[in-house]
């Protein structure tokens, strides 16, 4: 272990990753703003769904644009490695803040980006091929500790492996759900389309997807299988981006997986770019080793150990909850569970009070359609919304309002049923990390992990 921690390797892979990742995030941010999503998702809605414990994280009105500007600029600074340390901290803070504003827009790949940003704050990704390294000879180093690069590789492997483990369940493997529902929806795409009419295709995709997720991280790590594995990353992610609306995610993964390639490959990229930009040789492939100053080394290593222990355990927290994970979604987020469910829901809320006042709520008076759609299938959001309604009607003439919901949720092709009993007053329930005993039992079993 000690020998491993003292092992040094080329700084090139981390430097290239920093540049591409920063660039990708900067483009993502511009795309997000250009598509009008800041307005649509963070400024127009009347209410938001913060994460439990992070209720203080809220959109900032028109200033939200400034937040995105800060995020985009810090991503760009990270990319070029200028004031890298400060930029990386600002990038992590601003990106994570954005993701915590409304759980409606929660996506696993945003979480992944947040985690990468977190690690980058501590890593010497600017030791080479950066503006900082060019301006500061003492920072410049061609060699960095090997664990700095391996940490990113481990995170990528974990993402894939956990996504694969999550697929080891009876719906995915034995019923080919939800792919057997989703694929026929794409039966009009050229060439591959007709294949999607056959359930065999859904089975093949399910099994291959599962084996792919479980194995690709290790195949990327292994020198001999790497070219195959990387080709499969490209094909797999492009195929999924063709079939499903998943935005920038495929490109983030395609770029991130380059971290597995050897130093020579990355050095070649650096050399090409440098000669195109006419950069001086000694700035781009410096000699020397990067040393963490003083106490920084044990601190960073300690943080990383805690980080990975947490990452390994956290996705399994669902085991602490009774009832079916897909139904209650307790412990579902932040666990690399991707594309596992076709879940649709319908909720109609009624607010009453002791004086006989009664109001059937039109959800669109309070929520956007996206918020309504997400809320309708996720118990914690149903509860948050019930509290929004309780507070709203309390301020509008109701005395101690009671909030009831007529809910109907369908999961992976099962006929819909109530997620919450219609006679349960949600105004009295409160959020916690404990099991929500008011969720109607699933009364079916999805076997597996």
């Amino acid at each position, binding site marked *: 272990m000690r020998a491993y921690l003292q092992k040094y390797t080329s700084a090139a892979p981390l430097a290239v990753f920093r540049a591409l990742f920063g660039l990708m995030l900067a483009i993502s941010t511009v795309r997000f703003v250009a598509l009008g*999503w800041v307005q*649509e998702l963070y400024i127009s809605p009347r209410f938001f769904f913060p994460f439990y414990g992070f209720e203080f994280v809220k959109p900032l009105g028109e200033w939200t644009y400034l937040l995105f500007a800060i995020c985009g600029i810090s991503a760009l600074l990270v990319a070029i490695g200028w004031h890298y340390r400060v930029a990386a901290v600002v990038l992590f803070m601003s990106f994570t803040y954005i993701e915590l504003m409304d759980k409606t827009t929660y*996506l*696993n*790949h945003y979480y992944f980006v947040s985690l990468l940003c977190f690690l980058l704050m501590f890593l010497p990704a600017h030791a080479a091929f950066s503006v900082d390294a060019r301006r500061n000879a003492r920072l410049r180093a061609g060699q960095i500790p090997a664990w700095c690069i391996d940490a990113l590789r481990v995170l990528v492997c974990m993402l894939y492996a956990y996504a694969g483990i999550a697929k080891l369940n009876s719906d995915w493997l034995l*019923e080919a759900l939800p792919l057997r*529902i*989703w694929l*026929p*929806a*794409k*039966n*009009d795409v*050229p*060439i591959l*389309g*007709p*294949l999607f*009419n*056959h359930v065999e295709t859904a089975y093949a995709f399910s099994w*291959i997807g599962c084996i*792919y997720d479980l*194995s690709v991280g290790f*195949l990327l790590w*292994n020198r*001999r*299988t790497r070219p*195959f594995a990387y*080709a*499969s990353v490209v*094909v797999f992610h492009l195929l999924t981006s063709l079939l*499903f*609306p*998943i935005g920038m*995610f495929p490109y983030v993964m395609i770029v991130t997986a380059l971290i597995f390639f050897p130093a020579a490959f990355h050095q070649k990229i650096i050399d090409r770019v440098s000669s195109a930009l006419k950069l001086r040789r000694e700035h781009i492939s410096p000699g020397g080793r990067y040393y963490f100053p003083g106490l920084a080394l044990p601190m960073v290593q300690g943080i990383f150990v805690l980080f990975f222990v947490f990452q390994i355990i956290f996705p399994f927290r669902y085991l602490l909850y009774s009832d079916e994970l897909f139904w209650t979604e307790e412990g*579902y987020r932040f666990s690399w*569970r*991707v*594309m*596992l*469910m*076709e879940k*649709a*829901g*319908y909720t109609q809320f009624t607010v009453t009070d002791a004086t006989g*006042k*009664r109001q*059937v709520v039109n959800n669109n008076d309070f929520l956007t*359609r*996206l918020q309504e*759609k997400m809320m309708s299938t996720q118990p914690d959001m149903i509860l948050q919304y019930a509290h929004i309604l309780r507070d709203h009607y309390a301020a509008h003439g109701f005395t101690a309002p009671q909030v009831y919901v*007529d809910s*109907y*949720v*369908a999961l992976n*092709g*099962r*006929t*819909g049923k109530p997620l919450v009993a219609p006679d349960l007053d949600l105004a009295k329930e409160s959020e916690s990390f404990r099991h929500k005993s008011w969720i109607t039992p699933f009364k*079916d079993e999805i076997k597996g992990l």
Partner: protein
Amino acid sequence: MKKYFALLLTVFFLGCSSGSEKPGPQPVDEGQDRSVMLKSLAERIIVPSYDQFKTKFDDMNAKSKAFTAKPDAQTLAAFRAAWADAYIAWQHVELFDFGPGEKHTIRNFFNIYPTNVAGITANYSDPASNLEVPASYATQGFPALDYLINGLGADDTAILAQYTSDRDAARRLAYVTRIITRMESLLGKVTGEWKGDYMNTFTTKTGLDIGSSTSLMVNGLVLHYERYIRSGKFGIPSGAMANGIPSPDKVEAFYAKNISKNLAQSAHKAYVDFFNGKHAVTGEAGTGLKTYLDALGAKDSSNGKLLSESINAQFTVATGKLDALKSNLYDEVKTNNQAMKDTYNEMQKAVRMLKVDMTSAMSITITYTDNDGD
């Protein structure tokens, strides 16, 4: 082990690429072919239904001209009968709130009720009033005509007096003509587009993303059942929705009274028939939403029952409740409101199945932002 995986992956991607080289040797499964379904629905139901409505509408138009030329008991009676027939035929096309119908928001100008009496009065006093803004929706269409031919007086003599001896008689007659002319023009646009370029657009935009035909159609249909059949005809008048207070004056065809149930039955039947792909003229079942759902294999995993059968069973229960009502829904709200609420409740169950089970099985969602599916 690793070699095994590498081999497996290679086989998979070779498989994919060889699949790409020879485009679909197997015949396209017809039941899941959305272009076939869309063509069938458009040619066998939508266009013939508009044609049938147009015939009734033209008849109403002719009778209205006879009435405005010479308002008397006979022309009024003929106009009323033609109005009721056209109103019933309208129920068979109102559900097509997608494509040209949605583009021209024809429903807003044909059937927003309760009608706005003060607005109508203001409009006929000012022939230049704008009939294209949202505020004017409730002052035109069938509900406005309802008021103008059934609600202007206590009896026919009193109503006719409003068109003959009253100070504003000429203005009222002019307003009747103005409303019908406007409806005729809108209907002409909608049917013209269905028979023109839109037919091709409809049958070729076969995706399921936002803006594709099936998605627009299913969204429009679910909305229609939820808001315009369940809520509009039952939930709101009975007070089953909102604050629980009955509003009998909000029934459809409030002034004619006796046709309100008939209108609701027609709307419900048209909806069920459309779901089952029944030809608008011959009634013969064909390719439609039911066959598409069946081809997708949508069924309840607990008992294997086809989703389309479950939906039809719920439609039947709702129809049963609806058929048991008396012909005047205004009276039903006043004296037998629980039956109205029961009808609403059964329709509510159908709404859930359409909105959740059906759209989920079809993989139709209302999304406008990136979504990784979790």
